[in-house]
């Protein structure tokens, strides 16, 4: 009996070692790739005797001199209407109530929410547009603060996506695939470039909710997917405990926590030597990171020392934890402290009905703080090296969903064209890129697909999107899958 157990155990160990040869080799490439630094995190000699290719991968990144070091992505979840924000279509007002010509709609599939509509009455923006700045870009009256910083923005009016519903569309934007299980953009960057500041996660997530109709956002959007779990996004909450389970349990002080971690690391390294499972080292790294975060997080999340004029700039809501404004201010602080990728989500942009009233509330939530973030980064000299992105997962239809009255209408999801903006690191300021037809249904010039968008972002960070790969399930994966072109025209 004992003999049998022994031989079983032996077999297990042998299999684990075989497993190690293949998977662990790849995994050791991922740990600390692009950052010479991460090695220092590891327990000494944990990787002794491992293939030297890790070095080669490290040396290869970034592929060229990056313009941007960090990204702040202000994701407007729900699908902001381009027709009430940045894509000015006066013709729609003139044709108010007229049916959308079938020739323009083409073979565009519709959502179940409007597919049954007998008519597709065009509806113009309830809000007036005006031109601003040197770039003379059109901005609607909903975004007076953004209008003031328009010369720092690159407005892309020709975004398009494959998905037509929220979950696949957001997942597509975040991970490059409509189905889940791939790594999200922040995780890819953490994998490719490592963390700048080893005392904070390389990928932080901040969620806020507006007053408009919207859907939830789920942690699958900031998943590490097939990448090592160290690259997963860490959510910062509003409230007294911004990162859950970070503080020591009651009765444990810093010294005993340190001792505990050291002993635990010893045990883990023994376990690692036996089984070679890379998740064990990932776990050790996470413990160490969490330990250091006990000091760094309170320092970063403390907004009480921000001067009064900063509070005024972001709006006094920025002191209310969990609001969009507070998250913008926190995003600036995280970014300033070297967090590679700060992902914000603001929910509530899904205006199927009651668009004029709901969108006004949503815009009020985000306008001042988004513009303040640009101004604040700029005056700190950080905008040059920080890429800020603002936009949703798709646009909204040029025709009305449901009843159409002078001051009330709704718009359905529209994947064929929508507007976003980027600002800062590596992107030309003060330009408007791409064009849609006069009814705002199809793109007529310079289309930018989601894959192109990803390729461009990676480019500004010094990464060739075709070279940042990870082998999983027998093939190499990229954020841009097998597509994507860098939009050179918008690069500074």
């Amino acid at each position, binding site marked *: 009996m004992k003999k049998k157990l022994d031989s079983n155990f032996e077999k297990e160990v042998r299999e684990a070692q075989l497993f190690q040869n293949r998977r662990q080799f790849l995994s050791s490439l991922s740990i600390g790739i692009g950052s010479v630094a991460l*090695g220092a995190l590891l327990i000494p000699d944990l990787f002794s005797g491992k293939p030297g290719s890790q070095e080669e991968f490290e*040396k290869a990144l970034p592929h*060229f001199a990056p313009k941007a070091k960090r990204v702040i992505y202000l994701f407007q979840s729900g699908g902001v209407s381009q027709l009430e924000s940045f894509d000015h279509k006066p013709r729609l007002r003139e044709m108010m109530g007229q049916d959308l010509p079938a020739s323009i709609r083409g073979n565009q599939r519709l959502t179940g929410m409007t597919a049954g509509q007998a008519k597709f009455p065009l509806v113009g923006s309830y809000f007036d547009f005006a031109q601003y700045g040197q770039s003379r870009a059109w901005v609607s009256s909903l975004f007076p603060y953004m209008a003031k910083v328009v010369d720092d923005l690159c407005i892309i009016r020709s975004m398009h996506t494959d998905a037509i519903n929220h979950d696949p569309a957001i997942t597509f934007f975040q991970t490059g695939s409509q189905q889940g299980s791939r790594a999200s953009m922040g995780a890819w960057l953490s994998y490719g470039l490592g963390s700048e500041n080893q005392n904070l996660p390389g990928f932080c997530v901040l969620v806020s909710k507006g007053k408009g109709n919207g859907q939830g956002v789920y942690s699958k959007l900031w998943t590490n997917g097939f990448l090592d779990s160290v690259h997963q996004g860490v959510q910062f909450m509003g409230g007294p405990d911004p990162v859950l389970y970070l503080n020591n349990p009651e009765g444990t002080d810093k010294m005993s926590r340190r001792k505990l971690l050291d002993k635990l690391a010893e045990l883990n390294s023994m376990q690692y030597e036996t089984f070679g499972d890379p998740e064990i080292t990932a776990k050790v790294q996470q413990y160490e990171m969490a330990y250091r975060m006990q000091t760094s997080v309170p320092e970063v999340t403390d907004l009480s020392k921000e001067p009064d004029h900063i509070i*005024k700039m972001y*709006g*006094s809501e920025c002191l209310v934890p969990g609001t969009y404004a507070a998250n913008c201010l926190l995003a600036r602080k995280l970014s300033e402290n070297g967090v590679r990728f700060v992902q914000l989500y603001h929910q509530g942009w899904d205006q199927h009905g009651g668009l004029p009233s709901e969108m006004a509330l949503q815009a009020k939530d985000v306008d001042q703080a988004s513009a303040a973030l640009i101004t604040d980064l700029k*005056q*700190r000299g950080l905008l040059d090296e920080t890429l800020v992105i603002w936009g949703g997962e798709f646009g909204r239809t040029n025709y009305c969903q449901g009843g159409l009255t002078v001051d009330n209408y709704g718009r359905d999801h529209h994947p064929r064209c929508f507007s976003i903006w980027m600002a800062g690191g590596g992107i030309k300021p003060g330009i408007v890129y791409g064009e849609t037809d006069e009814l705002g249904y199809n793109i007529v010039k310079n289309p930018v697909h989601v894959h192109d968008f990803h390729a461009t972002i990676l480019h500004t960070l*010094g990464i060739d999107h075709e070279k940042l790969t990870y082998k999983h399930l027998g093939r190499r994966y990229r954020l841009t899958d097998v597509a994507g072109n860098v939009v050179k025209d918008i690069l*500074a």
Partner: protein
Amino acid sequence: MTLKNSHFNILLGLNSFIVFFLIFEEKIEVPVFLQVIGRMHPLLLHFPIVLLIISWLIFLFRNRLEKEVPTIKSIINTLFFISSLLTAITVIMGLMLSKEGGFEGSSYDWHKYGGVFLSILSLGLLGYLRFRKNKDYHPVFVVGINITVILLLMVGHFGAALTHGEDFISSPLISKESKALDVENAMVFEDAVLPIFQAKCMGCHNSNKPKGGLILSDSTAILKGGKNGKLFIAGNPMNSLMIERLLLDIENQHRMPPKGKPQLTIDEIALLRAWVKSGGKFNVPLAAFSEQDTLFQSAKSVYGFQGTENYEFAAADEDEIKKLITPYRIIHPLEAGSPALDVNFYGKDFFKSQSLSEILPIAEQVVSLNLSGMPINKEDIQTLGKFKNLGTLNLNNTKLSNENVQSLSAIASLKNISLIGTQVNKSGLEKLAKMPNLRKLYVWNTAVKLDELDAIRKAFPKLRVDAGIKFDEHQKLALTVPKISPARSFFQKEMLLSLSHPVSGVQLRYTLDGSNPDSITASIYKSPIRIQKDARLRVKAIKEGWLPSNEVSQDFYAAFIIPNKVNLESKPNRLYKARKEQSFFDLESGGNNHADGKWLGFQGNDLSASMFFDTPIKLNFLALSIKQEYNQHIYPPQYIEVWGGTDTSNMKLLNKVTVDLEKADKMRKKRMVTFNLPDLKVSVIRLKTKHYAKIPEGFAGTGNPPWLFVDEIVLK
């Protein structure tokens, strides 16, 4: 080989044809098939060059070679004949090629007549070889063959100048320095426009080869234009010949550069367009344009300004770098393979006195250093002086004082300095501004005053000083709304309400009687408010220098009576069960989210609940707290009935309330539907709702069955 008459005659014939061709050049038309042969000129010409040089080399060493190869003279004859023959054929081809047109200028003339002369000279030398009496070579022949080789090299050189441009060979030596523009000193024409002409246009439009009469090498010639007129109309790119030609379809015969030649990039065309639009001037500095200007932007795209620096120092030892990295001191190369390093410090509690000096072994390689927020001292600032290649320095929010600034100005290589939140003032700034390479200085939130900056900006026009936005002190913004806690609206005997606001120094004005919380008569919040009866709390935040916040209000209900038993007769939706019947009297309010476990949701069936009392009781008031959110199809019921009696089999209708539908834009998210009950003792009451079968016309979700959400029942 012995040269025969026939050899000489062939050559004589070919050379006669050449002379004939030259004389009647103007009148000769070259047929198309011969043009093809003409175009092989650049291909064939390499043969006579090589052969002639070989025969010359053999000729030079003939005496030494003759001992081993007795037939050396015959070999010289053969080689010389073949090379003369090929020379003549090459010249004929060249003449045919020249008939295609497009070749003008001095290089062309030198090449053409030099080539003809070379062929005739070869003929003469061959004649000497054929007809000489003496076995030795006459000194005139020796001179002649040397002249031939020299002539050959000259002709070859002029030919190369025609096809590749004047400075083709020497150009790598001439323009060795990096392409990137120096933003401050670059001139628009000389440094941005002319290089495009040189690279993409002047192969054909130079003074030697002015195709179409156009020369692009200098301002006078450019303004003159070509045979089709002026090159551009200043300020009007879309009507300018040059821009038109650049934008024509690639297949169009007027397209420039023509198909097959190196094309201009989009950015280069954009640059030329922007230059024409700006007036096409020749002596304007790039710095005269704003950063947003298309000209500036496209110049940046074409040439690049930053990041293209070549670092000449050697890379530091990798192991050395690794040793210096800690979680609080991160060192990265600027890009893969670059020796230049970027160093960032984090965690002010971990910054020790030796933290900075420890990296001195790699000081040479550090080009960018971030000490933002670190507790650096005087010694550290002196240490900074040892980083001789430092370009970017971030000292934001450090204790840098004016006295320390002097040590910074010793780092001549510094280009960008960030001093946000430091004690630096005007005099410190002036010291820094004098630094030779400094381009950007960030001084927001320092002791430097905005009006002091103007003088510095004027004195140092190359330096960009960013002092942040000018915040208008008088601009008033609205305060955010105050927060009321607890969030629940129901209490049994009494309740303590507290108010809070994130901005310090705010005054909170409130009323409890439903009146407007103005800034004069309304109570000022100091400590938690105790309420013992129904109340409507209305609050506003007020602070000097700010606009008052929007009002927030919350209703509070005293639920004095709790039944002994509650029975829920209808089934709530399985997703929104809350705590079933217990939810009605738990004093908990539902929140904004109807799925928070505090709301009971019904769809398709009506709500029916009975409340039992052990001892008969007199009730005069009942209220039902419901949610309204039309977009989510959450509506009030059509009407509500309250029945009561001594037991469930003995009940009568006490009251019935028809609930109006509030307009979508006036909709309250929470609503209390209230009943007054007749003066009657009851042991049981039953509440029944009747829903709309379908959402009425004109409301969100028309035609669908509505939802009802209830969180509490209040009895008095």
